[in-house]
């Protein structure tokens, strides 16, 4: 009985929407759709090809890599991965990287939450200048700070610790976190704060019990970005460490031996650095786009 007239308002709306969809499909020629898909596929291939090549190489033995060029691993081997996962100098690199990234995420979000709240809710002396100053730190090239950082952390005895890297990454991660969080917080109506205070909530209780749950997706996205920028930054991380807290990036330079570069291990190590990112991005996939816009769309 699909042709009978709809009776309820909902049904009317549905029928109208269905008709609209039919019209739209007719209006847009099929070739157009296919061109769209073709272009998208071409771009995805462009993105994936270098990564595929890395993956391909990580599963080949070194003799196969240096021999005839093969488009897929003909003698499939996991020897490079086995090497990385069994030698402590290799897997400690990953653990060190993860350790300082997590530390940095916790420190940054803890101090950025109240600061972002202040920026989104209050005017105070010097607020605009402070915000601009934060922004300049986001832009500060790590190369500028390389030498002073080295000396500073050496003097205070933090050199070659995870804390040193975590603190150094705060330089750009805290401003970034404040920027993103401020965007999300400004989306929460102020009446909520006022109602809570009238209801007798103290500020800390309101902040933890009411406010933070309201912007939880914003916090998730912020954490993702903190992870991302701390994970990909290596210039500071490798300068501030030598042996105990060496990040995976510096470990990877070990592949340059006397007999040339150990391509297989380099490829396998590279592949393994991509994995944490993919895991994290999977969890925030529905919010990334908004986060990239720093909550401002």
């Amino acid at each position, binding site marked *: 009985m699909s042709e009978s007239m709809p009776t309820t308002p909902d049904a009317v709306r549905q029928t109208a929407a269905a008709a609209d969809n039919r019209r739209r499909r007719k209006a847009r020629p099929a070739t157009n759709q296919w061109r769209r898909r073709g272009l*998208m596929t071409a771009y*995805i291939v462009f993105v994936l090809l270098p990564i595929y090549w890395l993956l391909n190489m990580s599963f080949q033995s070194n003799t196969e890599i240096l021999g005839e060029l093969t488009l897929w691993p003909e003698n499939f081997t996991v020897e490079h991965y086995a090497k990385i996962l069994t030698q402590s100098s290799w897997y400690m690199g990953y653990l060190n990287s993860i350790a300082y990234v997590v530390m940095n995420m916790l420190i940054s979000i803890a101090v950025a939450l109240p600061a972002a709240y202040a920026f989104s809710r209050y005017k105070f002396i010097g607020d605009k200048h402070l915000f601009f100053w934060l922004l300049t730190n986001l832009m500060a*090239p790590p190369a500028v700070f390389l030498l002073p950082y080295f000396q500073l952390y050496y003097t205070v005895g933090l050199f070659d610790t995870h804390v040193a890297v975590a603190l150094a990454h705060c330089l750009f991660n805290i401003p970034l976190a404040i920027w993103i969080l401020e965007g999300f917080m400004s989306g929460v109506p102020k009446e909520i704060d006022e109602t809570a205070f009238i209801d007798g909530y103290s500020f800390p209780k309101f902040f933890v019990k009411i406010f933070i749950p309201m912007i939880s997706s914003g916090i998730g996205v912020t954490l993702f970005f903190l992870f991302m920028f701390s994970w990909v930054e290596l210039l500071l991380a490798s300068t501030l460490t030598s042996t105990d807290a060496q990040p995976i990036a510096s470990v990877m330079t070990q592949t340059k031996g006397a007999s040339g570069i150990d391509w297989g291990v380099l490829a396998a190590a590279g592949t393994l650095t991509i994995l944490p990112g993919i895991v994290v*991005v999977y969890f925030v996939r529905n919010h990334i786009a908004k986060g*990239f816009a720093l909550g401002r769309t």
Partner: protein
Amino acid sequence: MNKVYNNRAWWLILPMLILVAFSAVIPLMTVVNYSVQDVFDANTRFFTGTEWFKEMLNDPTLHAALARQFAFSLTVLAIEVPLGIGIALIMPKKGWQASAILILVTMPLLIPWNVVGSIWQIFTRGDIGLMGWGLRELGYGYNITASPVDAWATIILMDVWHWTPLIALLCYSGLRSIPDAYYQAARIDRASKWAVFRYIQLPKLTNVLVIGVLLRFMHSFMIYAEPFVLTGGGPGSSTTFLSQSLTTMAIGQQDLGPSAAFSLIYFLIILLVTWVFYTAIMNMQKDDNNKEA
């Protein structure tokens, strides 16, 4: 949003301020300190005033690096912004394809920067890389260690691969915030595709595009690890950008004074650009507020 004037908000800022100041102000002061002195060892140092700044501002290698830096930053912006907008326009909006493509597109952004360099090093090598090998098979004598043109093209291609996703994701989120009603109105008016883009989509994108251009400009302006791994700044110094010249000078040659002066000049350029963008963003927000009011 109407903000309340309350100076007690400083207490909320304070922890952040201490941490960032520790990471930003103290090191910057060290740089300033070095830039006006000639340091021989821990105990011997001379005050030189602005001498290092004069020397650096007249240094031809610095000029060359700066020119290359601007050329690079502007080139990648000119390619990545239109390409990113284009990709955002053809990305599917719903269904599992949307999620899958979102994850795939984001992937290059999450790879550590030196690994990006390694990936492209492997990909473009003439003997073991698909692209290097393929171009040679096609009859082009592709060689990034000998030809500056090849090296430049490869670095730009690498940067496009690495960072176009950022612009694409920004624009994607901008496009998603356009209400369906706008498109319906455009359909009723029989607006052409170009008109829809020019008068509906592009205005909505300006906000995110300013952020995107800002982020892209500053990241490209401090690019270090990727070209360092891929070409090592060569052939010659044809792909040596500012960060790399600076690190060579500071760490490699231990010229503390000149490199500190160099750092400050570098930082001032970035500051200037940031200020321009900041003013643009603030004006945009003011406009938005006025519209709402």
